[in-house]
């Protein structure tokens, strides 16, 4: 072990260990979230949710995963093969990269990059590409419409997302996520920037394609949207990516607005996970209580409401900081 570490250097070893940790966390997180989603949905719909497999149905997601693994992987005849095969793998890359810079605790971070948030935003725009690949490669009209919707939606909502984060960056003069968390030792930024937090949260729900903004996979209109033609483990990868994305946007919200790992009594990581999963719960809550908006309404919300508001907020923040 020591030999390997000395061979590749301490820093690299730490990064590799971190990546492995991230991978484990991603899978674990998706398992927990699928279980949580079913439980939350169940209780909101006057049901109990899974309860047979394991205590409180906790083993259910593992059973589901095994089932998906065991399924025959169907490939429709007319698909564009390279795109069709690559899309579910590629959708996973930005998800993994984002985890590298998220500070789970004061010392628990794979790598503190001084442009951390830019890394996340840059890579998260890549996920659109794999959705488009999936939609186009599937050679299915529903999938294509879903993919096109997804592109329009993601472009529209990345702008307010970034604009809502900028005031915080201006206040801390740093792109580093750790520095931003450290700057919230006193009062969390959500109290300075309530509007920015709301804009960020709405935009992030749209970014993750969740109800009420789940148009790319709108079941009642597009059957299953861009992943209509995927089955088995390939479908599971899209699923995994979706749940990981939900966690990432919540984690960023916590880092930027809710003080990250800061909190009394409990260790930092516990605070961080508590806050993140609370936001994840809110996102699930939204899904099971709201109908879906229409496509033009969705774009209007972004271009006509969120972006102007975010700009005004940005200007005010800039002005106040100058004073």
């Amino acid at each position, binding site marked *: 072990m020591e030999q390997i570490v000395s061979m590749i250097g301490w820093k690299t070893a730490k990064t590799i260990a971190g990546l492995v940790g991230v991978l484990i966390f991603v899978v674990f997180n998706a398992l927990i979230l699928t279980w949580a989603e079913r439980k939350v949905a169940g209780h909101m719909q*006057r049901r109990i949710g899974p309860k047979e497999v394991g205590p409180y149905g906790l083993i259910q997601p593992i059973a589901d995963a095994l089932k998906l693994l065991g399924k025959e992987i169907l490939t429709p005849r007319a698909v564009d093969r390279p795109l069709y095969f690559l899309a579910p793998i590629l959708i996973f890359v930005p998800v993994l990269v984002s985890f590298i810079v998220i500070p789970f605790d004061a010392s628990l971070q794979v790598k503190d990059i001084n442009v951390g948030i830019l890394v996340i935003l840059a890579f998260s725009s890549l996920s659109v590409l794999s959705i488009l690949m999936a939609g186009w490669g599937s050679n299915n009209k529903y999938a294509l419409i879903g993919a096109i919707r997804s592109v329009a939606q993601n472009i529209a909502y990345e702008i307010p997302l970034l604009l809502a984060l900028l005031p915080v960056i201006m206040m801390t003069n740093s792109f580093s996520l750790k520095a931003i968390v450290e700057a919230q030792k006193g009062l969390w930024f959500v109290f300075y920037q309530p509007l920015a937090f709301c804009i960020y949260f709405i935009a992030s729900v749209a970014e993750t394609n969740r109800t*009420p903004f789940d148009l790319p996979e709108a079941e*009642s209109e597009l059957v299953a949207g861009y992943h209509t033609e995927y089955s088995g483990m390939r479908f599971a990868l899209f699923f995994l990516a979706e749940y990981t994305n939900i966690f990432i946007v919540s984690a960023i919200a916590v880092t930027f607005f809710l003080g990250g790992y800061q909190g009394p009594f409990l260790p930092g990581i516990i605070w961080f996970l508590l806050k993140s999963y609370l936001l994840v719960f809110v996102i699930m809550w939204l899904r099971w*209580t709201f*109908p*879906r*908006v*229409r496509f033009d309404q969705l774009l209007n919300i972004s271009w006509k409401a969120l972006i102007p508001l975010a700009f005004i907020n940005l200007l005010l923040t800039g002005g106040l900081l100058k004073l």
Partner: protein
Amino acid sequence: MVERIKAELGAALKGIEIREASYRERGYHLFFEVASGGLLQVARFFDERSFYLAAEICVDYGEYLELVYIFSNHASLCKVKVALKIDPAKPVAPTISTVFDCACWYEREIREFFGVTFEGHPNMTYLFLHEGIDYYPLRKGQIPISDEDKRSLGSFRPGEGEDTFSINLGPQHPSTHGVLRVVLKMDGEYIEEADPVLGYLHRMHEKMAENRGYLQFLANTGRMDYLGAMAFNLGYVTAVERLCGIAVPDRANYVRVIATELNRLSSHLMWLGAYLADLGALTPFLFVFDDREQINDILEPVTGSRLTYCYFRFGGLYNDVDDAFVAGTKAFVERMKGRFSLYEKLVTGNVIFINRTRGIGVIEKERARKQAVSGPVLRGTGIAMDMRKTEPCAAYGEMDFDVPVGTRGDALDIYHVRIKEMENAVKIIEQALARLPEGPIMTEKAPKKLKPPKGDVYHTVETPRGELGIYIVSDESDTPYRMKWRVPSFSNLMVFPELAKGNLLADAVAILGSLDLVIPEIDR
């Protein structure tokens, strides 16, 4: 009204004898025969007087085919039957789809079932059937379909132009609730044309009716509209009773009202859940099922089934209600009253829901009349037409209830109408329970084997989806000579292509949902 129409008809149509029928026995007030050449004039006559074409029916009498047109109107009770005799060897008739839009589909149906060609009809292609059918199914003799006819009938092809593509909404699609297929010609997300393709659940109930006794067919009625089976039961049973002149005891009439209204509630609840699921809100579905289960639990011990009921019999009921039923219904009514405010809070005020439905799928009064739209969809446009009020059967005449109407005719209005109808259904059930008389549930004079007197009847009832018209021709045998079902979803679906045009795909789903279609009923 009847007198005035008769006088005006007499003046307008020289040389045609306008005859009066006994409305109580026949279901229509006036009837007369018209020649091929005069049909369009008659259609225009009724169009000018704001009548709508309730049904267009073909009957094969052997020596001649008879086309029957039933005209009715929203303002007052006046039904006119117009008959047109055509030659079975060379069946050709003029189309009236140029005057009444809804005739378009009726004539397509007659074309494929009887082989009648309608001159001037824009689209004489298959509606329910396909090229595999070799004989005209509803003709009394075996009349083969010629290859040429098959080709022209099967000439429908979804068109793809430049910059457009076609997409199949169905037959397996989450929001068509069954096996409806709509071929959409899309320009991006916008719909340029919508063509419903029917027949995936076509079972030819009308032909089955000609091959079995009146009582045997009773079980079929619940299979047409599986959500509003009780109303279809009621319609069929009262139609046959009308034809035979069977009186029904009071208690049976009251129980019929209670059972039908309970079923209407459960049907509307199902619609509420499914509609919101169409709009992306999945939770209400489970909430309404909670209520619906209770209705099923009440009806199950009495009727013997939970979905496709077959509860009424000619002259009464299959089974008397017991104290448990009365107590259970009372408890349910109390519970239901509190649920409406819950739905109000959860759904009606939701801004996303309002934005998705307001101004979507607007049906004007004029279009509703031309397309013969009925039920809550019609009332959403502002026309207060309810068969339970205008032609009350069972004990509906003794009940006090409102006919809620909308103002704009959009999906939101239709939603409100249905919610208010549920509240009124609760009101009706309460009244009927309070006044439920004691006594027999079956008339003593009901014959074991029905052989209705010669003649026809056009009988209508209000199902959860609208006007159900049943046209029965009897030849004094123990099976119906011809039975035609004018089903509400069929007529309501006809309006969809026009509503969808130019709208987004998401709106099409919202419109389709607001029409509350039950596919087995459309296909029959």
